[in-house]
């Protein structure tokens, strides 16, 4: 059977080629230990940066970082599915309960500060600052604000175009919670996008726009945007690394956390990882665009790693 033997030949050759190519590129990826990390998409860039640098020093350890969201991450964390949970908020009571039920003990580490920037177009000459009240009026669900002069009568009679993060992002949850009052309370008629880059482009191209997103993205694009100082009662404060760090820029700055499973810490690679995290967070956090905490907090975190009796 001519065709049958040709078929056999082709199959054999293909298999050999595949096997050879594979082993050439993958000499023994008998992987060592995996550190399972999941959680917030906000914290992800920080943890990923740490994981990257960590791997350069400990190549046989494999930190795997997922993005299921703070809540989704906690769901896995409280059942012991993950070693570390990235969180853009502190753990909720229901989640504390869940981990207690499953016998999971954990440590909480504050690792960075995330500021939210409110921005308008560079050609917006009339806006000097916004108060927390005004922001709330603009963004609340049944808002009647449609034009700039609805906020302050001396402002232009032009329609406001709103931009903001998508509804399933932690940034959205946080903004609505501290500005409007409850997480998820927002008017629905704004241009939403997960991609902050898109928001930036939108605002930069629209004179009558107003939007909010992570401070890091503003910092990268400050030349084409105009930052809005926020007055929370003690005068307008412009967000910057200092004002976020000192707490002056409020209420739009929040702490970011990682939660570590106590049992996982008994593994040497996990302990090394968390230690490495705290040692390098200050630098990496800035690199990724967030605001680092005062150094002593990181030192405290490292001390907390020492085994408890």
């Amino acid at each position, binding site marked *: 059977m001519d065709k049958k033997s040709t078929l056999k030949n082709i199959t054999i050759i293909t298999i050999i080629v*595949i096997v050879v190519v594979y082993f050439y590129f993958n000499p023994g990826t008998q992987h060592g230990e995996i550190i399972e990390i999941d959680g917030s998409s906000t914290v992800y*860039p920080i943890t990923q940066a740490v994981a*990257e640098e960590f791997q350069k020093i400990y190549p046989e350890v*494999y930190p*795997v*970082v997922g993005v299921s969201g703070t809540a989704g991450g906690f769901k896995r964390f409280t059942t012991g599915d993950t070693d570390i949970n990235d969180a853009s908020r502190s753990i909720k009571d229901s989640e504390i309960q869940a981990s207690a039920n499953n016998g999971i003990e954990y440590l909480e580490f504050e690792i960075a500060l995330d500021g939210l920037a409110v921005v308008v177009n560079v050609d917006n000459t009339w806006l000097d600052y916004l108060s927390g009240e005004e922001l709330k009026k603009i963004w609340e669900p049944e808002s009647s604000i449609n034009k700039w002069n609805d906020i302050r009568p001396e402002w232009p009679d032009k329609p406001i175009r709103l931009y903001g993060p998508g509804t399933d992002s932690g940034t959205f949850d946080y903004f609505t919670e501290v500005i409007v009052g409850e997480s998820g309370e927002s008017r629905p008629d704004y241009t939403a996008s*997960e*991609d902050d880059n898109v928001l930036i482009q939108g605002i930069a191209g629209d004179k009558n726009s107003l939007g909010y997103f992570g401070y890091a993205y503003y910092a990268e694009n400050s030349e084409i945007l105009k930052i809005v100082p926020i007055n929370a009662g003690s005068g307008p404060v412009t967000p910057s690394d200092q004002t976020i760090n000192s707490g002056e820029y409020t209420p739009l700055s929040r702490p970011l956390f990682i939660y570590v499973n106590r049992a996982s810490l008994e593994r040497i690679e996990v302990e090394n990882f968390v230690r490495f995290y705290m040692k390098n967070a200050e630098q990496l956090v800035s690199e*990724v665009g967030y605001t680092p905490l005062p150094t002593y907090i990181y030192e405290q975190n490292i001390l907390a790693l020492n085994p408890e009796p």
Partner: protein
Amino acid sequence: MDCKTLLEKILKLAKNRQAKRRDIWRKIKGDIILVLCLTGIIITLASLAAILFDALQEGLPWLDIQFLTSFASRRPEQAGIFVAFFGSIWVVALTAFISFPLGVGAALYLEEYAPQNHLTSFIRLNISNLAGVPSIVYGILGLALFVDALSFGRSVLSGALTLSLLILPVIIIVSQEAIRSVPRADREGAYALGATRWQVTRDIVVPQAFPGMLTGAILALSRAIGEAAPMIAIAALVYIPFTPSGPLDRFTVLPIQIFNWVNQPQSEFRGLAAAGILVLLAVLLSINSLAIFIRNRYQKRGR
């Protein structure tokens, strides 16, 4: 010439001129339609050119050995598609091993063995419908069935099984066509010599239909490599610093990595995404060339 013939002659002339004008109008219509159709083709070709040009322009500067051998990174200059590339290879290879036998088997059954009853028509109807189900629905299915219910987790195996289900209808339909093209006479000759159904299938039908089946399978696999939506549901957007060494390992694939980079804030990542696209296209091109090569080779021999 008298009045009557003169009148007749004038009328004839008028009709001729009308006919000629109609004729000219018809010709013009024909030309317009030709131009329209030509425009259609030109627009199509121009779009393809634009896509390739855009991808090349943005991606080529980023395409180098470092790109091919590095892990993902937050720094564009250090990022690479090593992990995604091998993830894709693993998933596609496994998908091929799973889906090809199943698809060919189903096609053989439907064409050679199946009686003409309600169950068979129902199965056929089913297959055509499944071919039209959006890929994201397969992603949902894979997530619920393979990742959760069967606890395979977010592994290469779950990804491969999901993709197999996705392309199975296509493989079945194409294989059916290939099997149908084998002349009845060949089969009947074998039956006349006392061969059993399986012997006929194995020794007569399959060898002849094989090139067609293979081409179809390879084209279906090309589709599988490029599918992002179901893979995102299964593998998730995740930072992975290793390539799979077994079917139960975590993984990521080229389309996911590209999608990831498109959504990054820094503009350099656009270039990276384009470079990833070039790699993906290169893989597709080689697979399609393989299909054409096999098709030609078999056609030269057999017939």
